[in-house]
């Protein structure tokens, strides 16, 4: 039994490691390192700058208000959602449509979920760099104060891996959708791919609204939706990210949110899901 487990782990690890290397090469070697660095920095900073300018126009650059770090950090962490989810699922499109290698990889002795996860790692690294750069930029130039002594590290540590797993699971599920879309739609591969991609982007956008929203009414609505959601991925990942900002800014956000019932619900929900592995994805 132990030998079988060890052999499976070694098999999965090998698939994961090689896919990570491959994913990084695909993501980064299209340009020289300087251009790639610029590319990796400009996009997230521009995205954050849109919100910063919108905010500064309306509030006359009052960056001391607690609502600003909430918006800014929510937007920064949201990068993970797009990067991790597309990183994994886009690998299927890329391999099948562009490089035409999907069938060879699928039939090769590779643990396919580990392979897809590995392909997502490159984007995860890029997203992490973008998030760090965005936050450091905010701290240096926009007066965002992050007091590390105020961080609720317990909640942070509990929530982050869960969210990571959620995003990865969603990416894997999208990847599976892409595989299915490629083989079954009568309109041909492109139509199916685009449809499943669109659905995926729909998830992103809804999550985007959740992560950016700041009004009490919306947070209430998200709370209700999160409770009502039956999807194994649901809204929680993004909501968690959005609420992670609270862990950085505990004292100042007390009037904006209703954290405790929500967080208790999330954690309770997570623990119950850990006990019941998802049948739909085959992942946990």
């Amino acid at each position, binding site marked *: 039994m132990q030998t079988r487990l060890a052999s499976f782990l070694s098999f999965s690890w090998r698939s994961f490691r090689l896919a990570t290397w491959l994913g990084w090469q695909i993501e980064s070697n299209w340009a020289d390192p300087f251009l790639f660095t610029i590319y990796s920095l*400009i996009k997230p900073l*521009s995205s954050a700058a*849109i919100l910063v*300018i*919108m905010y500064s126009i309306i509030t006359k650059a009052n960056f001391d208000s607690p609502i600003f770090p909430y918006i800014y950090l929510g937007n920064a962490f949201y990068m993970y959602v797009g990067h991790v989810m597309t990183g994994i699922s886009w690998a299927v499109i890329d391999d099948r449509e562009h490089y035409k290698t999907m069938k060879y990889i699928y039939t090769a002795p590779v643990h396919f979920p580990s392979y897809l996860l590995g392909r997502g790692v490159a984007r995860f690294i890029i997203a992490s760099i973008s998030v760090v750069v965005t936050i450091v930029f905010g701290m240096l130039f926009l007066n965002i104060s992050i007091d590390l002594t105020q961080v609720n590290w317990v909640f942070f540590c509990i929530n982050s891996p869960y969210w990571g797993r959620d995003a990865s699971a969603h990416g894997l599920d999208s990847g599976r959708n892409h595989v299915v879309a490629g083989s079954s739609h009568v309109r041909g591969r492109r139509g199916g791919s685009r449809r499943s991609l669109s659905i995926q982007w729909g998830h992103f956008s809804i999550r985007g609204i959740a992560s950016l929203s700041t009004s009490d009414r919306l947070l209430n609505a998200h709370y209700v939706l999160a409770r009502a959601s039956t999807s194994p991925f649901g809204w929680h990942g993004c909501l968690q990210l959005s609420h992670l900002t609270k862990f950085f800014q505990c004292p100042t956000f007390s009037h904006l949110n209703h954290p405790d019932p929500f967080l208790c619900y999330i954690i309770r929900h997570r623990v119950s899901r850990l006990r019941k592995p998802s049948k739909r994805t085959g992942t946990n």
Partner: protein
Amino acid sequence: MATTVPTLPKASSWKLFFKTVFARAYPRIVGQQCEKSWMFFDIFLPILSIAAYVYVYRAIGAPEEYIGFVVLGGAMTAFWLNVLWSMSSQLYWEKEQGNLALYIMAPSSMMAILLGMALGGMIATLLRAIVILFIGGWLFQVRFVVTDFWTLLLVFFLTMTALYGLGMMSASLFLLLSREAWHLANLAQEPIYLISGFYFPVKNLGFWLALSASLIPLTMGLDAMRQLVFPSAAQFGFLDVRIEVIGLSVLCFIFLLGARYLLNYMEKLSIQEGRLTESRR
């Protein structure tokens, strides 16, 4: 006994040009309406991103005009994305799929093919943009008050001509690219939304930055349209609408001429080198 081969009457050069334009525009207009789910998502997704920005504005107590700016800007993003992904990078995709050689060998002008692509894309996107505008306006209670309809129509026409001219011009440049084409098109989204003022008045970027951003036709076009659709927006305007109309006319001329020049240049270059690949470095 000699057999006679029936021959079709040859199209004259102008007739061929317009037939090519129509033939290339047709799949864009008809094809994009065939797949109902594409239509739904093309309309639904931009509304979601508009909603995110609208809620941010509402949360920080912005005046109602700004909600209208976001809805109008969000509708115009459809055109930018269409130019970026279906014009600029189109020849690159065609090259990847093996159609480019057929286009080049066909006895018709490449300019007509690009123009057909632009016209088809513009009409198909216009339908989506109108729906986004109406749904967005209805959802967020935006009041559009058109002060001068004909000037608005002129500004829109000039913006589209210049924008798709820019797309035609960059299509030639994208032919030089390989995998970086996808990344560069991806890169030209958020930074362009930022400097063109899709979600806020471009005037706030400062005069010189806004002026530089005006090289992208949507900057001036969007600014002029906002001034014409929201009467109170004149105070947020970057330049006077008349100046913006002149600026857009100049951009139309430059980009269409540039498209023709670059296309000829690329064709010459590929004939000289005997290839149309990215390894020309």
